[in-house]
Each structure stands twice: as structure tokens, then as C-alpha cells.
């Protein structure tokens, strides 16, 4: 394989991996606070539709992108309401959110199927895009990809080095101790859910505003679930999330290209690739590294003492 094929493929891998990266980082934030939100797929779909509609009505894709995040946080708020206020089962609530979110987006999006909205086009970064290989792979893409480069650092720095990040991790590891130390467990878990939902919503908006530029029902096609799997693969570390997201982006880009070049392989079998890889990645994640464990009380509701 020569560079003429490899470079566009790698660039496509980064682009296809970007929505998954946003979603994975969002779910890491949520899970670090001890809340398991399996609604990622539904939140992504809502973010994708909200971003699309906002951009279509305002004509401004930046407004669309931010609307995707805001609506992502709003719909994730349902999970907070059910689990934090009403002590509902986190697994079932997340599944219900996926059912609700995907169908809501498909329902409200049905009149707009095939319509397009102003989105983000290619914007080569001056100087950097001129570097051989690295330039075209990383710096000849759209603005939202460049924004996503900062995200893993931001999430990592927030969790590792800020007081709020420490508190958020504390309520995910030991809420009783956190509460005894004066932290309001519910507040930090709400923060984890809403901030996580915002990032997942941004990932969804990326799909409709930069990846396809038009609305189709079922746009996320399991990317939300892949993100949930990648959180485990990444051992809840933002840096490893980048690796996982681009790996999946690569597989998706590769499969699309193979279909486009007219291979003899049936498309149903090609479409299996990312889903099969997800299972494989989970199996690989069973070889744990030190410090690669889930937050200690992930998925367990916290009942404040009397």
C-alpha cells in the first residue's frame, strides 16, 4: 500500500474517529463520577438531530454544534432525574434512554430525511497542513476535529489536576468518604452526567454537521455503544480513548472505501467489521494494566444517610 492510498485512509480514520472520541470522553466523565449511563447511543442521536435542526434554522453550524451539546446534556438529565433523584436502576434507565433518544430523533427527523444543513467543511491549518504525511492526516480536516484534539487533554487535566475533578472522582470511588469529607455526592454526579451528556451530544452533532452534512434516520449506527465499549478498553483514561476512537474510525473508513471500490464481498459482511472488533476489543481489555479498574461504585446508586 503506498502513501497515495494510506494518507487519505488515515485522514478518514481521524475524521470517522472524531465523533466516537467526543462520545467516549463524555462517557468517561460520567462514569468517573460513579454513574453508568448506557444511553450514549440515544444521546448521540438527539445531539445529531438538535445540531442539524439548529444549524438549518439559524444557518450557523457553530450554533448547531453547541445546540447538539446542550440537547445532549438535557436528554442525559433524564438519566440524572431517574437515577439520582428517584434512585432508579442505572442499567435499565440508560437502556430506556437509548430507546427514547434514538426513536425521538428518528421521529422528529423523519420530515427532514435527505435534507442538508450548513456544516463544517475542510479547513487546512496554515503551515501545519504542509508537513508531509502528518499534515494531510491531521491538519487538513474540519474545525471540529481540531477542537477534538484539545478535548482529551482538557478532560485529563480536569480529572487529574483540578479540585472539582478530584471531587468528581472521589464520589465515583467512595461516596461515603466523599460525603463525610463534606462533598455533596449528588451535585458532582449531576455534573458528571450533564458534562458527559454535553460531550456525547457534541459527538452526535459532529455526525450530522461534519460527517454527512445531511439528515438520515439511525445516523449513529451503534457508535454510541462502541463508545461505551471504548471506555472499558481505555481503562477510563482519556489518552487511551484517543487510540481506541481512531482505531474504530480506521476500521469504519476502511470498510467504506472497500465498498466504494466495488469489492466482491457483500456489504452486510463488511458492515460487521466494527461490531466484531468491539467484541474483540472488550476481550483484549481483560488483560488489565495497573490502575485500569472501573470506578469502584460504578452503577451503584448512593442513598444519603438519614
Amino acid at each position, binding site marked *: 500500500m503506498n502513501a497515495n492510498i494510506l494518507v487519505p485512509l488515515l485522514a478518514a480514520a481521524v475524521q470517522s474517529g472524531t465523533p466516537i472520541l467526543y462520545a467516549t470522553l463524555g462517557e468517561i466523565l460520567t462514569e468517573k463520577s460513579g454513574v453508568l449511563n448506557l444511553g450514549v447511543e440515544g444521546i448521540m442521536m438527539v445531539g445529531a438531530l438538535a445540531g442539524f435542526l439548529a444549524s438549518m434554522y439559524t444557518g450557523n453550524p457553530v450554533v448547531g454544534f453547541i445546540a447538539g451539546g446542550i440537547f445532549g446534556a438535557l436528554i442525559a438529565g433524564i438519566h440524572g432525574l431517574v437515577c439520582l433523584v*428517584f434512585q432508579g436502576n442505572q442499567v435499565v434507565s440508560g437502556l430506556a434512554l437509548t430507546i427514547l433518544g434514538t426513536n425521538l430523533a428518528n421521529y422528529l427527523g423523519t420530515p427532514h430525511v435527505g435534507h442538508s444543513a450548513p456544516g463544517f467543511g475542510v479547513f487546512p491549518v496554515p503551515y501545519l497542513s504542509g508537513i508531509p504525511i502528518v499534515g494531510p492526516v491531521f491538519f487538513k480536516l474540519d474545525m471540529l476535529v481540531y477542537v477534538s484534539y484539545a478535548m482529551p487533554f482538557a478532560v485529563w487535566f480536569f480529572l487529574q489536576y483540578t479540585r472539582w475533578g478530584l471531587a468528581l472522582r472521589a464520589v465515583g470511588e467512595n461516596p461515603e468518604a466523599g460525603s463525610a469529607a463534606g462533598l455533596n455526592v449528588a451535585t458532582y454526579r449531576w455534573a458528571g452526567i450533564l458534562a458527559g451528556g454535553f460531550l456525547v451530544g457534541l459527538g452526535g452533532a459532529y455526525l450530522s454537521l461534519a460527517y454527512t452534512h445531511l439528515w438520515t434516520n439511525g445516523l449513529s449506527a451503534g457508535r454510541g455503544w462502541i463508545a461505551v465499549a471504548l471506555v472499558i478498553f481505555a481503562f477510563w483514561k482519556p489518552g487511551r480513548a484517543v487510540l481506541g476512537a481512531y482505531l474504530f474510525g480506521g476500521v469504519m473508513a476502511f470498510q467504506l472505501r472497500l465498498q466504494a471500490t466495488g469489492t466482491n464481498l*457483500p456489504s452486510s459482511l463488511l458492515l460487521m467489521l466494527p461490531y466484531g472488533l468491539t*467484541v474483540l476489543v472488550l476481550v483484549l481489555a481483560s488483560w488489565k494494566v495497573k490502575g485500569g479498574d472501573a470506578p469502584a461504585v460504578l452503577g451503584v446508586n448512593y442513598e444519603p444517610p438519614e
Partner: protein
Amino acid sequence: MLAFKITRKQELSLRSSCFLLFAAIAVSLCMSAVLLLMHHKSPVDGIALLFEGAFGSLWALEESLIKAIPIFLCSLGVAMTFRLQIWNIGAEGQFALGAVGATWVALLFPDLPALVLLPFMLLVALTAGGIWGLVPAVLKIRLRANEIIVTLMLNYLGILFLEYLVYGPWKDPVSFGFPMTSQFSNSAIVGTIGGTRINWGIILCIVLGVTVWIVLRYSRLGYELKASGENVKAARYAGLPYDRLVIFVMVFSGALAGCAGFLEASANLNRLQPSVIAGYGYTAIVVAWLARLNPLYIGVASYLLAGLKVGVENMQLELQVPAAFGGILEGLILLTVLAGGFFTQYSISIRRKQ
């Protein structure tokens, strides 16, 4: 100042759970009425069409019962895994594999007599669905792979495999390009009971439902499932065969979903085509939770949600409401029941703060 005092109730009453379910359905219908308005449809007409389509005529009642059969079978299995705190989200894929397995036999031996062919199809469907449940169970036990994600991915893989077959090697040469197999021979079709449109699968549902209820309530296995589900560590410590129980419920659950796939392909479609996948596996999860994992309530809840699906089909036809409306209702009902469960599990009293 007023403050709320929240305490956990000791026991749950059946009456409050029933009330909760119907309250949840009412609240969800109200919320979805707003969605109808957003599509410029009259909510009153919409809800009327929903109920008329679901329960308004003998034809509708029959149609709901037909759809309740696969939902019930999937849900019965899924509920068993939920009891053990194993989250099998994979009924949809296990259903697909069951349909594929049964079709394989039906296409391979069309000339066998029904008395041989149908049990053979059932057996292969049970095995295929069971294997699709076994894989995540083994990965969970041996490699601690998260079963929620693995079963979900196996859904995508199972459905894509089914599509590959009906678009490719199994496509009927005279189907004018439609992705479907040729029609099953008469001996490969599960018949209907008397003059109704209900197939014999309903008998299977009743027998299975009662059996599972008895097993859960009175047998050692039922006790082990209950004990292990409540506290995995304690169950392991007490010497309960937790790993074997996980394998058992996952294979059982997969086999039941596979059986549902067999019935759908054989009795309702008489062939394999992509429309056999109708989301029953996901509805089954909603049903299991609404029914508090109790086999008898699962029967009732399956019928209710099947009615909802039939009603939404009626709305689609008469009001051109997108099909996703049904999914929104399911999601809303489940979320309201989850949130409302708080009021049946806790009692809230208002007191004056000193």
C-alpha cells in the same frame, strides 16, 4: 420550614405496582401527545386510533396476541438473566439466529413430514439462539467481558448475518430481487389453532410461563437464582455455582428468543426476510422490567406492549405517524416506571424542620 423525610418501605404491594404501571402509561401518553402536535396531528385522534387499533376489535385483539407471543418468549428469558443481575440485551440477535437456524432446516429438507420437520426446526432454532447466548456468557465468565456490550454487538452481527443470507445465498431466484427466501413448504409451517389466526406457539408460551413460575418459586434452581442475584459475592462464598447459573440463564434466554424467531419465520411470514426483525427483542427488555421479572406478569405486560405496537401501526396507517412513535412510548413508559418505582419503594412524609 417544611422538609421531606424519605424512608424505605419494607414490602411492595401488588396494587401499588399495577397502579404505577397504568399511571406510567397515562403519563407517557400525555407526553407523546405533545409530539403528535409537533407533527401537526390531533392528539385526541391519535390516542383514539392507538386504542382502537390495539384493542378495539376482535381482529385487533387477535393481532395483539400474535405479536405478544414472540415478545413473551424473549422477555421470559431476558427476565431470568436480569434476576441474576446479568444484563442480556441480546434477545434481538438471538431471535435472528433462531429464525436463521429454523430456515436453514426448512430450506434443506422441505419434503420431510411436518411431524419430523417442525421439531427439527425448533431444535436447530433453540440451539442457534442458545449459542448466541452462550458466547457472551463464556466471555463474561472467562474474560470478564461486559455482557451488555457483547450481547448488543451480537445483535448487530446476528441481524447482519441474516441480511447477508437473504440478500445473498438464500435469496429466492424468483423473488424479483426482493431480499427473501422462497416460501417454506407446507410441512415447515406452524399452523393456526382452529378458525383463529393464532399459531400453536401460544400453547408453548403458556406451558413455559407456568413452568418457569413454578421453577422459580418452588425449586432449588429458583432459590439459587434468587440468592445469587441478590448478592454475587455472598452466593459464591456460600458455594452456589454462580458461573454455571450464568451459563444456564444465558443459554436458556437465547434458546427462548431463538424459538420466537422460529415461530415468526414459520408461522407468520412462512419464509425468511429482513422484516422478521421487528424489535421484539428490545421490547422484551421493557416488558421484563415492567413485569418486575415475574413470569405471570410478563404475560400481561407482553400483551399490553404488543397492543401498543399494533395500535401504533394503526396510527401509522391512518395518521402517517412515523413508526418511531412506538419506540418513544416504550422508552417513556420504562423511564416513568423507573422513576415512579421510587414512590412504591419509599414512603415520603412531610415534617416541620425544627
